[in-house]
């Protein structure tokens, strides 16, 4: 049963990955990426990392790829065409270089096998979530990286709002609202800017 689930999700992931790399239409590639990320989420689940798998689906399938889709759909389809030959040549080269860099750094196997951090096995019957939660807020675990990541994300959020607002001011000075929305009142423009 575990084999069956593994090969199903691995198949979805590999199929999606191939679609990302080789499909001529970029929008299709993004949908392939959705399949690949979903497959990887399922693989986490088969490995017993249920929290990680669900987070993968929530954040990557439902969140990040939606933003990617927006970005891709707003580009013209002519500019988004990639030739098959170039992809065929580039994929092995980039993959080989990435492998070499990793080997030069530490050796691939050691990266996978010993991360040098706390690793906890999930006890049967409660899932991995309580352990992950405890590790995130305990000083022996990942409290500092967690806090740093939180601060980083906050800075990114504030920065995004600031950048969007500045562009909005320029647009307002030129006498037109931000693209795609009716300039109804100040509140509307501000919220569009936040969302952009």
């Amino acid at each position, binding site marked *: 049963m575990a084999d069956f689930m593994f090969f199903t999700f691995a198949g979805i992931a590999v199929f999606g990955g191939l679609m990302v790399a080789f499909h001529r239409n970029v929008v299709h590639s993004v*949908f392939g990426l959705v399949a690949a990320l979903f497959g990887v989420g399922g693989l986490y689940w088969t490995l017993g990392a249920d929290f990680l798998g669900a987070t993968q689906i929530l954040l990557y399938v*439902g969140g990040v790829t939606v933003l990617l889709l927006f970005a891709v759909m707003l580009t013209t389809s002519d500019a988004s065409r990639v030739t098959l030959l170039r992809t065929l040549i580039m994929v092995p080269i980039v993959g080989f270089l990435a492998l070499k860099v990793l080997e030069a750094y530490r050796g691939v196997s050691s990266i996978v096998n010993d991360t040098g951090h706390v690793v906890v096995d999930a006890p049967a019957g409660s899932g991995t979530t309580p352990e992950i939660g405890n590790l995130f807020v305990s000083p022996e675990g990942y409290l500092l990286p967690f806090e740093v990541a939180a601060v980083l994300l906050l800075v990114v959020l504030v920065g995004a709002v600031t950048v969007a607002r500045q562009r909005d001011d320029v647009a307002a000075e030129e006498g037109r609202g931000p693209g795609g929305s009716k300039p109804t009142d100040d509140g509307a423009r501000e919220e569009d800017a936040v969302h952009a």
Partner: protein
Amino acid sequence: MTSLIAFFEGLGLEGVLALSAAYALCIASLLGFITVYAMFAIWMERKVAAHIQVRYGPMETGAWHGWAQSVADAVKLLFKEDLIPPEGNKFLFWIAPAVVFCGVFAGFIAIPFAEGMQIVDLHLGVFFIMAIASVEVIGVIMAGWASNSKYSLFGAVREAAQVVSYEIPAATALLVPILVVGSFRLGDFNAFQADHGWLVLYNPFLTVAALIYFISSLAGCKRAPFDLPEAESELVSGFHTEYSGMRFSFFFLEEYASMFVAAALTATLFFGGWNLFPWGGGWEPAPLAPVILISKIFFFIFVQMWLRWTLPRLRVDQVMAMGYKYLVPWAFVCLIGAAWFEYMGWGGLFS
């Protein structure tokens, strides 16, 4: 689930076969349940709308108050021609309704209707339902893009902006009861509320969180006043403009199924689950549990319909202002406030 597998193994089936048979039975019964429920809910919606607008609604089909109207509609949809836009993308157009429906359908497997009466007892219950429901957005964008129609694409883009935005207050509001109970498992919420009374009355922050979650779930289900992705007065019918026949009905099934999931989460996390009285429970006999829970779920579905037919639709900017200016900050206030109450050991009106 395990008992079902054991039952099929008792019939003489081997390991994987018994498992597949059990899953197939679960999926088939769930599909049947969702279909029948959706038909009933559509009929109910028409009746509620009619009575709010002081008319009768369907009265002819099936003699008694038009009860067979949805059945007749379903038969009509089954036989309707399935049109695919020639300029659109056939594969994505074909697969989009399935993706949309699967996201919500998968959420059903984690909902407990009584002690042990659920398909999979996930430790991650709430989180899993939230996560898998977010797949639906991808399907809607797929549908909107593959239709090759401006209205569809506008609808899909609005849907994506709205649903992704309202996931933040919805998830944050759901974190408040999770913080109090200390578990993602939906069964634990029922057990906790049997001892301590309904969580919505547990402390004031939970009351506000329940309200925030309910409003956000309306936006997540694309229900009025947040039905901008469909906005029939501006966008024909939004992202499913080009769909017809059976594929169109899948979007309808999805809408009503997601209303059910949202109402089930509201009922289980905030309003006591299968505990009948606000001050706790646990005395209810097991066969009564699904009846209590489903009555609560239908009450919240009724509230969703009630709001749909009494509130005007918000503008796009008002939807975004509502989400980011009011719901998100208040959800954070609730989370911090509930954590403070828990730290001080306050709360629990009935415990």
